[in-house]
C-alpha cells in the first residue's frame, strides 16, 4: 500500500495534494507525518518509522 505524500491518505486521486512549492509531508510507505526540515536550498524529510 502507498500513501499520498501531501495528505497521508491511502486512496488514489491525490495529484493535487502536493503542490509544487510544498515538500512531502507524509510517508508514502506508512502514511505517518514526516519530520521535514526545510533548508535554504533543499529539504530533508524523514519518517520516524520507515527507513529512508
Amino acid at each position, binding site marked *: 500500500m502507498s500513501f499520498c505524500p501531501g495528505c497521508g491518505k491511502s486512496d488514489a486521486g491525490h495529484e493535487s495534494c502536493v503542490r509544487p512549492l510544498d515538500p512531502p509531508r507524509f510517508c508514502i510507505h506508512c502514511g505517518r*507525518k514526516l519530520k521535514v526540515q526545510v533548508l535554504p536550498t533543499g529539504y530533508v524529510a524523514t519518517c520516524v518509522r520507515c527507513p529512508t
Partner: protein
Amino acid sequence: MILDIAREQVLERGVGLDEAQTLEVLRLPDERVDDALELAHEVRMRHCGPEVEVEGIVSIKTGGCPEDCHFCSQSGRFETPVRAVRLDIPSLVEAARQTAATGATEFCIVAAVRGPDERLMAQVREGVKAIHDNVEINVACSLGILTREQGEELRDLGVHRYNHNLETARSHFGHVVTTHTWEERWETLQLVREMGMEVCCGGIIGMGETLEQRAELAAQFAALNPDEVPLNFLDPRPGTPFAGLEPVPAMDALRTIAAFRLALPRTILRFAGGRELTLGDLGARQGMVGGINAVIVGNYLTTLGRDPQEDLDLLAELSMPVKELSKTL
C-alpha cells in the same frame, strides 16, 4: 490625482504617503497599476539606490508553537501536516554557508515560538557563534516576543537585525491572532530598536483585511519606521483557519507593493513568502521594478521557493547589483 501628488511628495521630497493617500493608491484601477509601479520604482531608485539585499532564512525550531496565528501551519493548535523538528548546529552552519554561497548578505534564524525559552536561547547562542566563526554573513533572528535580557543578549551576540512582524493592521489583528496582542508585538519592536539592533517588521497581505486596513498597516509601519519590511502574501495552508482563503490576485499584490513603497520611501522592502503563488515568475520581475529592493532567496520556513539562481539571474538582467557584505556592516 494621487500619483501626481506622490511624485512631488514622495519622489521629490522623500515624504511617504499617509494612510489616506496610501488608500488612494490601493484603490487605483487596474489600468493605472503600471504607472504606480513605475513611480514606486523611481522612488526606490532615488531613495534606496539600485542595490538589492539578498537574504536566506531557516527554521531552527519548526512547528509545535503554542500561539494561534490563523495563517500559520506551525501552530500546535491546528491539525496541520507540519511535524515539530529542531535543526542541529552543524546543519544550521551549513544552511548559512549555502545561503552565503548565493551571494546573500543576510541569514535569518527563525523559531516557531511565542518567545524564546532557555533551551532555544542556548541553541541560538551556540548557533550564532558558530555561524560568525565559520561564515561571512550577517545574522538576524526571529524568535518571537523578547524580554529585555534576551534582547540584550542577542545584541551582544552580534545579531544585527531582529524580525518581528506586526502581520496585519492593528484593527484586524484580533481576527488573525487571539493568543497575544498587537501591542505585545509593538513592544518587542520598540525593545529591539532600543537594544540597537536593526528592526525588521513585516506583514501578510490577504488575510481578510480590507483595503482600508492595508493602508492602516502601511501607516503603522511608517510610524514604526523599520529598517526592513518583508511583504508576504498569504499562502493558505492546509489545516489552518485561513486554509479556505483565496490567494491575493496578482494585480492586488502589485498595487500593494507600489502603495507600500510610496508609503515607505527609504525602507528595505523585501519580497517574502507567497510571492511565487501570488505573482509567479512574471510577478518577480514586476515587483523588482515596482519598488521592491530585497528578496528572500531559496526556500522559506516550511515551503519551497524559487531556485536562488533564477532570482540572481533576474537581478543581473535588470542591472540591479546584489548588496555586498561590506556595505551592510
